[in-house]
């Protein structure tokens, strides 16, 4: 029987019956998949609450500028939704949900009928959003569930719902939630179209700017299309963390030490370049460095460096937005550490793959990254040797790529 959305024949079952049926089928799955994460979150909160005055923090958050609260609400909904996409996909397309698609109900009713089960994976997000107040927390939880469902359907509506969540602060939370409910129809349509059989068309603008950018684009597309939630998280979380930590350092450290703090923050994310290159190697199954590609060793390494530097971009941006990198010299130190980490990752990956086709991470790349971080944090005078190390690693990588 063709699935034609709200166009159906025959008597329409009552939506309450559909909700009950779906709940019986899906709620146990939702609970069992959400429970480990929820318990971990509860444990973390119980531990952190011993050190942090949560009510005080909540008061501070609610007194923060509207822009900061909006960013927090939107980011929570986006991260909560995208982070639990796996759960949503099981709920929406798993064997227990199969019968739901055959139910002759409209798009909005279908999305609403899923609601009971879909809200459960969003509970941890709602708990975090309590910092914004109880009503905004409910609105953010509801919209996070919609972000997750739309994300599981690979629908751009996920961004609309995240944007709505950004407005769910203060007295507007109720209005945002109502606007979200009013958009259940498009969500239901996205769920129907996004079924595995639907295979929505992929359209991406390809920037045509030469071989290096072509290879970087290939790598980024591979990561994005394989692990969209992880990539989205990497685009947001490190930057926000760097911004928050840098702000905290600025309040507690003397100004002369802030630049070292910036370097330490970049170094703390030292595994990201190596992990990114390892992930690309896994996605492309060794074809990443195929011998027959018509690119020179230098271009090959430049492309690897570009891909490796991407996850550090949000970190550096977070530090720069915090405005505490301690002037141009501090910015140079931060950029140097990022470059060293990327160069070492590229050299290590090439060293491993030229010897044998391995798709996993590179142990000496990890060790070198940690070493570099420690060295870089000791003294500003470490910058010239670090630049030399970066150049050496890049040269080694070029030789291996040739």
């Amino acid at each position, binding site marked *: 029987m063709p699935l034609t959305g709200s166009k159906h024949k025959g008597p329409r079952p009552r939506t309450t019956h559909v909700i009950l049926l779906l709940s019986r089928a899906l709620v146990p799955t939702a609970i069992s998949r959400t429970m480990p994460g929820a318990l971990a979150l509860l444990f973390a909160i119980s531990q952190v609450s011993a050190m942090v005055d949560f009510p005080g923090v909540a008061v501070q958050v609610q007194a923060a500028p509207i822009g900061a609260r909006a960013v927090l609400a939107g980011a929570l909904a986006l991260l909560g939704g995208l982070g639990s996409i796996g759960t949503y996909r099981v709920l929406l397309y798993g064997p227990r949900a199969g019968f739901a698609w055959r139910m002759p109900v409209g798009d909005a009713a279908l999305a609403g009928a899923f609601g009971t089960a879909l809200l459960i994976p969003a509970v941890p997000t709602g708990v975090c959003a309590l910092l914004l107040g109880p009503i905004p927390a409910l609105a953010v939880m509801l919209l996070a569930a919609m972000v997750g469902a739309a994300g599981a359907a690979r629908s751009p509506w996920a961004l609309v719902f995240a944007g709505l969540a950004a407005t769910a602060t203060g007295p507007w939370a109720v209005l945002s939630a109502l606007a979200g409910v009013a958009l259940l129809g498009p969500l239901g349509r996205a769920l129907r179209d996004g079924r595995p059989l639907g295979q929505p068309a992929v359209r991406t603008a390809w920037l*045509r700017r030469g071989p290096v950018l072509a290879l970087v684009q290939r790598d980024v*597309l591979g990561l994005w299309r394989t692990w969209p939630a992880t990539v989205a998280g990497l685009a947001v979380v490190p930057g926000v963390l760097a911004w928050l930590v840098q702000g905290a350092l600025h309040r507690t450290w003397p100004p002369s030490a802030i630049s070292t703090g910036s370097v330490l923050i970049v170094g703390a994310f030292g595994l990201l370049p190596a992990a990114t290159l390892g992930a690309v190697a896994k996605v492309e199954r060794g*074809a990443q460095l195929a*011998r027959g590609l018509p690119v020179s060793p230098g271009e090959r390494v430049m492309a690897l460096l570009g891909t490796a530097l991407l996850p550090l971009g949000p970190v550096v941006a977070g530090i720069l937005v915090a405005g505490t990198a301690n002037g141009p010299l501090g910015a140079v130190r931060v950029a140097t550490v990022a470059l060293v980490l990327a160069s070492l990752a590229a050299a290590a990956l090439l060293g491993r793959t030229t010897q044998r086709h391995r798709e996993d991470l590179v142990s000496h790349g990890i060790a070198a990254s940690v070493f570099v971080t420690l060295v870089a944090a000791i003294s500003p005078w470490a910058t010239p040797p670090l630049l030399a190390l970066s150049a050496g690693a890049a040269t080694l990588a070029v030789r291996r790529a040739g």
Partner: protein
Amino acid sequence: MIAVTGLEVHYGALRLGPLDLRLDAGIVHLVGSNGTGKTSLLRAMAAAIPRSAGTVEVDGHDPERDATARGRIGFVPAAPELPGFLTVDEAWRMMADLRRRPDWDGTELRDAFDLPGAQRLDRASTGMRRKAEVVAALAGDPTVLLLDETLANIDVRGREVLCEWLDRHRGDRAVILTHHGASPVRPDAVVTLG
């Protein structure tokens, strides 16, 4: 356009060569039983695997050392090698970029093959993927074409399109193709291995 001198390939149990071949333009049909080294020969010419001895030159340059020479070779391997997460259009655009011809437009050829540009390669049928690899191999107008069992799995219309293209360009391209049975396009020479 392509000159092979004393080429030897030792790949696993395979011992191929020494082999000499020179082709300025035209179509060579490479034939031989399974395991005689047709694929290894094409892969060595395309610098996709290292050669054990001898030289390969494309317009006077060694493709193993020179990226520009590699860019003059369009290679369609027997098994798909383009990343499956790319779409048809992204695949040929990437290859055109890598060959430093970002202005190259493959939409006409893609349409002639009846390929949807937004189709992801890993969700395409075997034949569609093969046609997408052909369009990507032709991106940037390489002067040497190495086609390894390319016509297998391609539908009748696709074969006609490719054969017409090969026939039209036999005067300005060096084409070496492997195909079991009679060549679907009239070859200028037949080389037998084994």
